[in-house]
C-alpha cells in the first residue's frame, strides 16, 4: 500500500509557491527573447554581398535576406525570393533547377518564370551595383527586367 500523503493547507500553499517560482523562472528566457526581438523593425532595402562573383555561378543565397545572386554569360543578376502569389519565401532547388514555394506549391523555372501553381508572374529582379572594393550592393526597392545584368 502506498503511504498516504498528508495534505495540509501548508503543503498545498508550499506547492503553489514552488509552482509559481518555477513558472517565473521558466518564463525569463521567453520574455527576454520577446523583448529583444527586432523582427518588426524596418529593414534597409539595400543588401550587400561580400563576394565579387567573378566566375559563372548558379544562384547564390545572400545571408540574412531574401536575395539570391548569380553570374551567367550576360553578367550578374539579383532575384528577390518572394512568391508573387501570397508573399511566402521561395527556395532554389539546385538539383531541379527550379524555385519552389512551400505554401501553395508554385513552381518557377531557373530564371524565375512561373511554370506551375497559382503564381501570377515572374519572381522580381533587383538592381545590382558594384562598390569600389568589389563587393555587390543589391537595391531590393529598385525592380528591373528579367534580362538586365550588371
Amino acid at each position, binding site marked *: 500500500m502506498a503511504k498516504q500523503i498528508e495534505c*495540509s*493547507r501548508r503543503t498545498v500553499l508550499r506547492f503553489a509557491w514552488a509552482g509559481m517560482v518555477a513558472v517565473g523562472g521558466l518564463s525569463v528566457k*521567453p*520574455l527576454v527573447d*520577446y*523583448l529583444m*526581438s527586432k*523582427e*518588426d523593425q524596418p529593414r534597409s532595402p539595400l543588401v550587400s554581398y561580400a563576394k565579387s562573383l567573378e566566375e559563372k555561378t548558379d544562384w547564390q543565397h545572400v545571408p540574412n535576406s531574401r536575395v539570391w545572386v548569380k553570374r551567367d554569360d550576360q553578367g550578374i543578376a539579383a532575384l528577390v525570393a518572394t512568391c508573387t502569389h501570397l508573399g511566402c519565401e521561395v527556395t532554389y532547388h539546385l538539383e531541379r533547377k527550379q524555385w519552389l514555394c512551400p505554401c501553395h506549391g508554385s513552381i518557377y523555372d531557373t530564371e524565375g518564370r512561373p511554370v506551375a501553381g497559382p503564381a501570377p508572374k515572374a519572381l522580381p529582379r533587383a538592381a545590382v551595383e558594384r562598390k569600389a572594393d568589389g563587393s555587390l550592393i543589391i537595391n531590393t526597392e529598385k525592380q528591373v527586367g528579367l534580362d538586365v545584368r550588371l
Partner: protein
Amino acid sequence: MKDSKETETSVQRPILMSDHDQKEKLSPVHKLEGNSRNNFINHVRPRFISERVLSVFYTFCLGGLSFLAFLMLGITGILLMFHYQPGASSGYSSVLTIGSVIPYGYIIRNLHYWSAQIMIVTVNLHMVRVVWTHSYKPPRQLNWLVGVGLLVLVLVLDFTGYLLVGSQESGAAATVAANLLKQIPGLGTALAQIALGEPSALSGSTLVVYVWHCAVLPLAMLWLQLYHFWRIRRDGGVRPL
C-alpha cells in the same frame, strides 16, 4: 476532531492576536495620523472575518477572478505595447507580426485575448451573483453603483481592444461607433473625434484609441477597483444579509 483543531489554529488564533491589534495598542500615535489612512488600514486588515464568508459557494470568487484576469491583461498588455504599432496601416500588420514572427508573441497575444474574454464572462456572472444574493441593497448601494461603473469601463476597454486589432471588422465597428456618436446634436462630432480619432472604414486602429485603451481607461479602472474592494470591507464584508 482534527479538522476543527486545524481551523482553530489557522483561522481563530491570528484573529485574537493579530499584529494589527498589537499595533493599535502599542502606538496611539498611529491613530492620530489622519483619519483616512487609518481607516484604510483598518479595512484592508479587518479585526475578524466571519467563518461563513470563507465559503466559496457564496461568491464563487467571481470578483477575485475578474481582478486576476485584469492583472493578467495588464501584464500581457504592457508586453504587447513593446511591439504593437497603432495606426490605420500599421496596426493590423503589427498584430500579424506579433502573432507569427516575434518569439512567443502569439502566446502573449492569446493570453491577452482570452483573459479579456474570460473577464467579460466573470464580470457578468459576478453581477448576476450580486443581484441573486441581493447584495446591491443598503448599505452596499454605493458599491453597486461603483460596480456598474466598472462594468461600463470593462465593456469600453473590450471594445477599444477589438478596434486596436485593426482588421476590417474593427474598421466597420469603429465607423458604426463614430456615426452613432455623431448623431448626438452639437457635441457629437467633437465627441467622436475625442473618443475614436479618425478611424478608416478598413481599420479601427488609431493613436487616440490606443491611448484610451492602454493608459486612461486601465488606470481609471484600477483606481475604481481598489475603491470597490475597500468599500466591501467598509460596508461590513461579504456575508449573507
